[in-house]
């Protein structure tokens, strides 16, 4: 067991691409934690999707033994947390398990929106913070300016920030020394007290079942212990305890201040709760840790199998995924347009994409995704509240008193020359400006925006109007009433449920027109003309007509052509199967998503 004074637990906070994973790799490498030949990039990003997209979805930990200049060997436990806003709540929770953070800022870019969001989370968790300026090998790096920015914007002392290149290795020894000297050891814990450990995260391993990451506060955790989860009440026999180096390495025991994993034949991630207190069944600790509220989905969409025959396979796949991702919800949904599928809830858009990718890739199911939507609060005339997850379920307006929608506080950092376009975009999306300040050549705009205006293509639009130079982060700030209506889309006079959406009344005409125009482009001509309409209740607010196909006939067809021409038409027919039959109209799958993209 390591004395507390020789333990340092920390995380790394950074904006995406500022070098968090690369720095972690260097720390691991420099301390010889991994043999040189086993070194690969982004060691901690375990899942393929994480590695491919360069994002971390689950918290990972690694234990590093570091012989410091003072002659002592320290145990450094790094918790690598997801950097994306969708998982902000997860980050906040894992940060409770460590005492300090390295704040990595790309010295060529400076402070970005996620830098702010993540560092404030660390400050909220009472972390000691060591600023690290990365990428100093690049000629464009400007450490002085960025140092000043950190002090101005974040308000922490950056005079002793480490200047490093995670790529070349320059400055890494300084970072290690700073971890030892500037970050505090864990608060005191007592090895002789009853076991009290925090459940930091849990994940599913194909071979080992559920692996639980724990931070021990008091007592010791050993193989063979019978443990109890104080919130969920589950009891388990510990098969194994260990640490990540970063390969799983079994250890005798984990004592106060230490971070590691346990394996106790737990079947599903769903059986564990992040923040739960783990104790011994026989000799439990007196008080549990405060615990956390479970994270709740904020973005919803329908997922439908392209091939209706895949529905049962899809159900299996979704159930399997859900067992190991407690933050994602699902319930069966039937759509007149798309058949049987699921309405799923996610922590955010990235989370949605990750789950959809996994269903398609790992389970081989081709999916149609409907437009993402948020939860609206519908109030009846007598003030009773009902949650609306799917615009298609919107009841008759006469029964609804008022509607509230979720709002976010969005922080956008952008070079000055793009500010005008960003403000325009926020305004178009019904944003209310909360703050506008300048920090070292960059503007920071803070907006109060409706979440529903953001979930779909806001980030894409922001990237395109700023040529990728803007950074963006948000947090939920609550619900507010607005003049919201359900807009239905009618194709050939029949409402297409999967295209229904909630919109602000003032924007309905504009959105309706844009949808009808898009659909007119996306639906191929049929043998008859097709009216495409947007309507609020019975009132049509926009209309386009897709004219009938006029000519599609083979000019020459003689004795030699029969089999070849027939094959061609059969191929065409097979191609049409990929479309969704809606009444007499066939709608291509991509229309369900593309129709909603706004170009301006």
């Amino acid at each position: 067991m390591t004395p507390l004074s020789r333990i340092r637990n920390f995380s790394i906070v950074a904006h995406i691409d500022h070098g968090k994973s690369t720095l972690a790799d260097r720390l691991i490498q420099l301390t010889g934690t991994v043999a040189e030949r086993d070194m690969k990039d982004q060691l901690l990003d375990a899942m393929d999707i994480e590695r491919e997209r360069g994002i971390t979805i689950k918290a990972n930990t690694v234990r590093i033994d570091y012989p410091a200049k003072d002659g002592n060997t320290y145990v450094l436990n790094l918790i690598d947390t997801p950097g994306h806003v969708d998982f902000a709540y997860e980050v906040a929770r894992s940060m409770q398990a460590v005492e300090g953070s390295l704040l990595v800022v790309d010295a060529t870019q400076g402070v970005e929106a996620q830098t702010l969001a993540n560092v404030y989370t660390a400050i909220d968790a009472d972390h000691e913070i060591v600023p690290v300026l990365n990428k100093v090998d690049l000629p464009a790096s400007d450490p002085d300016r960025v140092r000043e920015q950190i002090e101005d914007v974040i308000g922490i002392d950056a005079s002793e920030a480490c200047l490093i290149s995670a790529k070349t290795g320059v400055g890494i020894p300084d970072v290690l020394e700073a971890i030892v000297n500037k970050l505090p050891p864990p608060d005191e814990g007592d090895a002789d007290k009853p076991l009290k450990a925090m459940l930091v995260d849990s994940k599913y391993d194909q071979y080992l079942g559920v692996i639980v990451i724990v931070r021990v506060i008091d007592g010791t955790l050993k193989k063979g212990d019978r443990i109890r989860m104080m919130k969920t009440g589950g009891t388990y026999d510990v098969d194994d305890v260990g640490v990540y180096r970063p390969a799983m390495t079994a250890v005798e025991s984990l004592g106060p201040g230490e971070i590691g994993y346990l394996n106790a034949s737990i079947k599903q991630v769903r059986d564990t709760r992040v923040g739960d207190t783990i104790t011994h069944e026989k000799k439990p600790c007196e008080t549990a840790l405060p615990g956390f509220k479970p994270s709740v989905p904020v973005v919803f969409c329908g997922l439908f199998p392209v091939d209706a025959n895949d529905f049962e396979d899809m159900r299996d796949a979704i159930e399997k995924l859900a067992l190991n991702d407690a933050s994602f919800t699902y319930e069966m949904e039937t759509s007149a347009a798309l058949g049987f599928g699921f309405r799923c809830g996610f922590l955010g858009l990235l989370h949605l994409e990750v789950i959809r990718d996994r269903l398609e890739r790992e389970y081989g199911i081709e999916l149609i995704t409907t437009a993402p939507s948020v939860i609206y609060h519908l109030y009846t005339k007598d003030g009773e509240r009902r949650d609306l997850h799917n615009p298609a379920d919107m009841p008759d307006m006469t029964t609804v008193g008022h509607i509230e929608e979720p709002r976010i506080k969005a922080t956008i950092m952008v070079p000055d020359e793009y500010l005008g376009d960003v403000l325009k975009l926020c305004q178009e999306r019904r944003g209310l400006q909360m703050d506008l300040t300048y920090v070292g050549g960059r503007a920071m705009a803070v907006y109060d925006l409706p979440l529903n205006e953001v979930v779909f293509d806001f980030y894409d639009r922001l990237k395109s109007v700023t040529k990728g130079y803007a950074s963006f982060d948000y947090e939920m700030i609550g619900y507010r009433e607005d003049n919201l209506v359900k807009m239905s889309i009618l194709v050939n006079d029949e409402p297409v449920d999967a295209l229904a959406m909630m919109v602000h009344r003032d924007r309905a005409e504009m959105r309706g027109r844009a949808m009808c125009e898009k659909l007119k482009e996306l639906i191929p001509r049929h043998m008859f003309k097709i009216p495409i309409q947007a309507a609020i209740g019975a009132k049509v607010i926009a209309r386009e007509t897709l004219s009938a196909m006029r000519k599609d006939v083979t000019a020459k067809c003689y004795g030699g052509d029969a089999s070849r021409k027939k094959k061609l038409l059969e191929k065409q027919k097979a191609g049409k199967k990929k479309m969704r039959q809606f009444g007499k109209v066939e709608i291509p799958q991509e229309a369900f998503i593309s129709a909603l993209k706004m170009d301006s």
Partner: protein
Amino acid sequence: MSEDWREGGFALYVHWPFCEAKCPYCDFNSHVVANVDQDRWARALAAEIARSAALTPGRVLKSIFFGGGTPSLMKPETVETVLRAARDGWTWANDIEITLEANPRSVEAARFQGFASAGVNRVSLGVQALNDADLRRLGRLHSAAEAQVAFDTARDTFDRVSFDLIYARQNQTLADWETELRSALALAVDHMSLYQLTIEPGTAFGARHAAGGLRGLPDEDLAADMYELTQALCEAAGYPAYEVSNHARPGAESRHNLVYWHYGDYVGVGPGAHGRVTIDGRKHATEDWTAPGKWLEAAEAGSGHRSVAELDGPTQAGEYMLMGLRVCEGVDIDRLERMAPGGIAQEKLAALQDIGVLWKESTRFGVTARGRMVLNAVVTELLPDQD
């Protein structure tokens, strides 16, 4: 056992795969070859005919068609040898139609008399356009004036003369086509084939088009306007369309092509030729080797067929609809039902009728004028689902 072919009759198609030059739009099996040993080809074609005749005894031949390629490059003696083999093989109908496709150049026109003496009684001239600029763009070797002379010679020589035009060309306006079609109607004898230019993959035009070239082709709307104009002008001049692209004075329809569209039987000989032949009550599809050299060797060795496959009922029904819906009289419901019992979905017919692209009477259904213009979409709807 089915003798369904009787509903369409029996014909012989002979493919001559050689041309003087390859036209940039053409995806027919045609090759430019310097020296062709015509006697050897004549013997091989005749032997193929004899073999097919042995499998189809007792048939009465309605029509013979020399297609290409450019059959007008055949020597009259070659044509004669082939026709003799056909005469020996089958009984001929009294009014047998014997057509030869001809390019309208003076060299070929010089042989017209020889073809007539050999028995040819109808020619189909590949005029394609009535102005030199467009003829050049289509890669044709003849001028408009030369075509006119060849046409006059043909009229003096044969009972029946037809010609082909290709329209919906690059940069052609509706007015341009109207003028040209009016001149064509003034020339016409009894039959015309009016094809909209089709960009075929694997041709020079296909490659240019795929690479973003060949601009100025009509869009769907202009092509539709041109087609409608064509129907109106031809109808008014007494040449109604009896098929998508074929116009004739009533009674002057091409009997040969009607065998295809009525889904009769036809023997196909020559490189790349296809046949539909019922043997012992079972309909077969034959396909010959396409490369001329390969075909010649195979034919001399005993058979030019690359493949012979029996067609099942649903396939026959599909082909019958594909072909039969091209002509005015449409298809016979009982015939379809015999080929593939339960194969036509009544609700599909009703839905197509509903939108005005299909007509249906007690024993037949066919496409309306509007349906004909979107025939591919109609047939696609009617073809049985494949799984």
